[in-house]
């Protein structure tokens, strides 16, 4: 087995991988930027190396710096986590050249999947179902018109190099096609330096369902069931669950077999995810393959009883999959909430800052993967994901019940989080009855917050009044260390690294 693994990431996923290393008796090497010295992944690692300023381009995205640390620390493998360099073929190749094992697919497999249109050609040969449309970029507006007529409106324009909704346009009628095509192209050009745009039939209110696959380096590929990821905001997943409430064993098998064909067509190894769009008739269409570990991998772990990171490491070491497809059994139901540092009262804008009070949920069926701790200052430089709260239950209702209970125990003071959002989602009748699609969340957020029970409300208000008086009476004794640190953000740090104001100044100088 590997002796030492470098984790080229930060936050909850870095902590999660470090834990897997320790569980397998492998030393874990952390890297951190100037604003992350006090981060949890540095506390938990066996070795930690600074790799530069807050800006990711100068630290977590800097291939040379990370390979230098690998060399200095003597790490024999690198886990990229998700985001940052995880889907960077150049990095995978550089690792291979440096003689460090990249825990993930080969650079070639990444590139095959990197461009949506090229991936599509390979997949079509493998008989993978696609949304009707062009498999390559459009040459001309005329061609766009022609194809749109064939497949029928509404149609969707998408950037070939795209992702995250950039360069995407929904077109309802022929009249709007020209302007939409132009703006999609220029947006794609700006965003990806590549204006290539293709056209597809638009699926209205689709579900986003993805299939987890695992492939070893000896030609064995299996699927581990699906994840329902339809709850999104700004093309950002917010709640994921497994299994999908609409997928039955037969559909699971059919989607799984397609996913395996996709992986095999790309010569894929290690863990990957095949994304599908599912329409109201439960037809599923290949969307893209994510060549990394997903944020939402825990829901699959809970319903299959497997540890995907352990398996990633074993596969990277050259081991064979320790089980066959028939051994994979889905049991129970799991739901994940992504806890973000966002302000619900301010259109969910990011809310970095110091965590002055943290009360943690635990107990039956609750898994918490977190990168935060009380006293830590959330830097303003990175993705606002703080932690993931995952609930498991014998069935979906129990999972929802446990998660609701755990959310009521969870308290993050000092910064704003989206915890209240999950209460709304989990209580929403359409979510309870699993009537969800990629438009659900935006629709729900447009609704005014359902009227709270006014009597309970009045009672809670009186409690708040009494408590406010008590805290005033108790004064600083009741505030403990928190009050001090609230007024002096630096009391929790010996050095100034994680004092965000300093970070902000550095930021401002760039």
């Amino acid at each position, binding site marked *: 087995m590997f002796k030492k693994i470098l984790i080229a990431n930060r936050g909850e996923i870095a902590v999660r991988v470090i834990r897997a290393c320790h569980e397998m008796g492998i030393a874990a090497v952390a890297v951190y930027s100037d604003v992350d010295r006090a981060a949890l992944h540095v506390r938990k690692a066996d070795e930690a190396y600074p790799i530069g300023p807050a800006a990711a381009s100068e630290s977590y995205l800097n291939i040379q710096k990370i390979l230098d640390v690998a060399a200095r620390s003597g790490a024999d493998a690198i886990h990229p986590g998700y985001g940052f360099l995880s889907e960077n073929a150049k990095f995978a190749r550089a690792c291979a050249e440096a003689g460090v094992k990249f825990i993930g697919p080969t650079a070639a497999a990444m590139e095959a999947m990197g461009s949506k249109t090229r991936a599509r050609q390979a997949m079509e040969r493998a008989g993978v179902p696609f949304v009707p449309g062009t498999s390559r970029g459009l040459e001309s507006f005329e061609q766009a018109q022609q194809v749109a007529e064939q497949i029928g409106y509404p149609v969707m324009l998408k950037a070939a190099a795209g992702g995250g909704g950039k360069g995407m346009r929904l077109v309802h009628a022929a009249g709007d096609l020209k302007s939409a095509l132009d703006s999609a192209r220029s947006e794609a050009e700006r965003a990806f330096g590549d204006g290539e745009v293709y056209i597809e039939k638009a699926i209205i209110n689709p579900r986003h369902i993805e299939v987890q696959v695992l492939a070893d380096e000896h030609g064995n590929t299996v699927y581990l069931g699906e994840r329902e990821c339809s709850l999104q905001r700004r093309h950002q997943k917010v709640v994921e669950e497994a299994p999908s409430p609409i997928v039955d064993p037969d559909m699971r098998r059919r989607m799984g077999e397609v996913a395996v064909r996709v992986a095999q067509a790309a010569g894929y190894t290690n863990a990957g995810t095949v994304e599908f769009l599912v329409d109201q008739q439960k037809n599923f269409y290949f969307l893209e393959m994510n060549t990394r570990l997903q944020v939402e991998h825990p829901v699959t772990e809970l319903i299959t009883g497997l540890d995907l990171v352990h398996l990633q490491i074993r596969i990277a070491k050259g081991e064979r999959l320790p089980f066959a497809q028939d051994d994979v059994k889905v049991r129970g139901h799991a739901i994940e909430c992504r806890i973000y540092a966002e302000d619900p009262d301010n259109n969910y804008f990011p*809310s970095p800052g110091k965590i002055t*009070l943290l009360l943690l949920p635990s107990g039956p069926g609750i898994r918490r993967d977190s990168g935060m701790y009380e006293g830590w200052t959330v830097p303003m430089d990175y993705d606002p994901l703080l932690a993931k709260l995952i609930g498991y239950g014998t069935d979906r209702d129990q999972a929802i019940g446990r998660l609701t209970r755990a959310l009521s125990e969870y308290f993050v003071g000092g910064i704003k989080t989206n915890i209240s959002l999950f209460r709304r989602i989990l209580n929403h009748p359409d979510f309870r009855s699993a009537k969800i699609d990629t438009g659900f969340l935006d629709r729900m957020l447009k609704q005014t917050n359902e009227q709270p029970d006014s009597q309970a409300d009045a009672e809670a208000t009186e409690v708040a*009044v*009494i408590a406010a008086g008590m805290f005033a009476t108790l*004064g600083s004794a009741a505030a403990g260390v*928190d009050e001090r640190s609230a007024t002096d953000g630096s009391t929790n740090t010996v050095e100034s690294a994680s004092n965000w104001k300093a970070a902000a100044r550095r930021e401002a100088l760039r």
Partner: protein
Amino acid sequence: MTYEISINGKNYRLELNQSAGQWSCRLNGREIEVDAVLARPNVLSLRIGNKAYEVKCERVASDVHIWVGSQRFAPEVRDPRSLRSRSHAADDHGPRKLTAPMPGKVVRILLAQGVEVEAGAGVVVVEAMKMQNEVKSPKKGTIQKILVSEGAAVSAGDVLAIVE
């Protein structure tokens, strides 16, 4: 000790006395049986009658919030030794401050000093975690002052501009 406490514009008169760990409490003159333990700093285990509540006190910059279970309240407590009183009251008269809703970096100033502004119009753009946030005018009026410049780092609660 007597407090004037207001929540959502509603005012309460709270008489609170503590001796030997026992509390006596009158809310708007009504006697209430209370019993409290400070489980840890800023966390009260409160009993009112026989109902139990976990109440959290959140102190951020100038704000104090009280959480009852999952509900958040912003009480204003008036008393010498009180939690800092907050009073950017709801009236639209006189100058109003625009404050940064989060720490971040000022990336754009949308309106110059002295110009007219509509209620809800964006004045300053603050960026954090790769997202931009338009700070909007709370009232119709004119921009009396812009207190930050582009590129400046601001913390939550910092005053960005004043509208009159």
